[in-house]
């Protein structure tokens, strides 16, 4: 990570409080991401047509999650963002998982006959 140029004395670090360096992702990197996302789509269709029992949904979600992480890191530039932005994104997904887990535990412990 390269620090941005500083043209004047900045002892209290006002210019760049989050130590964010402005990074431009190149078209070549985007093309690589694009190709990997297309490959992931093909892979998920192929995997769905093979009978893997309980592993079918696990693999499908695994591929979708991998694609999501690639999109977030590169298309959405989170890999090159400050800790503040990274923590914000992570907090959102963590909160989502907490809510899913808590709601699911409620349903699982009620309608016994249906599970």
């Amino acid at each position: 990570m390269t620090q941005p140029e500083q043209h004047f004395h900045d002892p209290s670090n006002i210019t760049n409080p989050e130590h964010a360096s402005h990074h431009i992702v190149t078209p070549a990197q985007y093309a690589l991401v694009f190709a990997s996302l297309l490959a992931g789509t093909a892979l998920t269709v192929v995997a769905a047509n093979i009978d893997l029992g309980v592993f079918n949904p696990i693999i499908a979600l695994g591929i979708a999650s991998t694609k999501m992480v690639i999109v977030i890191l590169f298309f959405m530039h989170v890999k090159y963002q400050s800790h503040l932005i990274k923590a914000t994104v992570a907090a959102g997904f963590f909160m989502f998982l907490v809510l899913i887990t808590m709601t699911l535990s409620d349903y699982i412990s009620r309608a016994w006959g249906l599970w």
Partner: protein
Amino acid sequence: MDSAIANTQVDHDTAEHEHVVLPQHRHHFATEEQQREAGSFGMWLFLLTEIMFFGGLFFAYLLYRNWYYDAFVAASNQLSVPLGAANTAILISSGFFMALAVWASEVRKKAMLVVFLILTILFGVAFLGIKAVEYHEKYEKHHIPGASFDASQFINPSAYGLNEKPLPPDMAQKTQMFFFLYFAMTGMHALHMVIGLGLLFWLLARAQKGDFTSGYVAPIENFGLYWHFVDIVWLFLFPLLYLINRHPLAH
């Protein structure tokens, strides 16, 4: 009040902090980098509320899929994998061109930015076009939940030439739950795309005026975050709705 405005003006002119003031730079941010980061932060907070919004739909899907699994499999197999996979590729392409649009804006290439925004729009419209074809097929087959829903092909699949497990009438009715979630989730996703396309036309008009190729990237960048988020929702919708179990008679 007038004097307050005048005072603010004076304060601004006597600039305490020494830095080059670019036209897009708001005076309450110490630096442009700080302004940019605050903008990204705000956009991400909005996207977090969107995660929670779609999350509710995904949770409903998870629950009903477990309760009415056989109905979900039979109903899911009525969706077209070629159309769904093609739409996934189209949406990824749209996202790719949006990413390139952000790059063009960063390196200040106006003509390229305009071209990439147009390509983003074209692929977005193509996605909605295929979605409309799929919705129309559901209408023709009476697979839209409600009074005119027809569950007969799930009760007696062989009469319709389908290689599916026949469902008891009560379970066959539960296919409506799948189609309800299918329309709710893809419909809400499509609504986000329609809103996105509206914003894209606005960004395109401003990009043609050169608004985003003189160092002011924030609207393009933040719209890109929104567009990629909508892509991510679809990356999950495709396997969860179209590919539940493509070999229903295996077990």
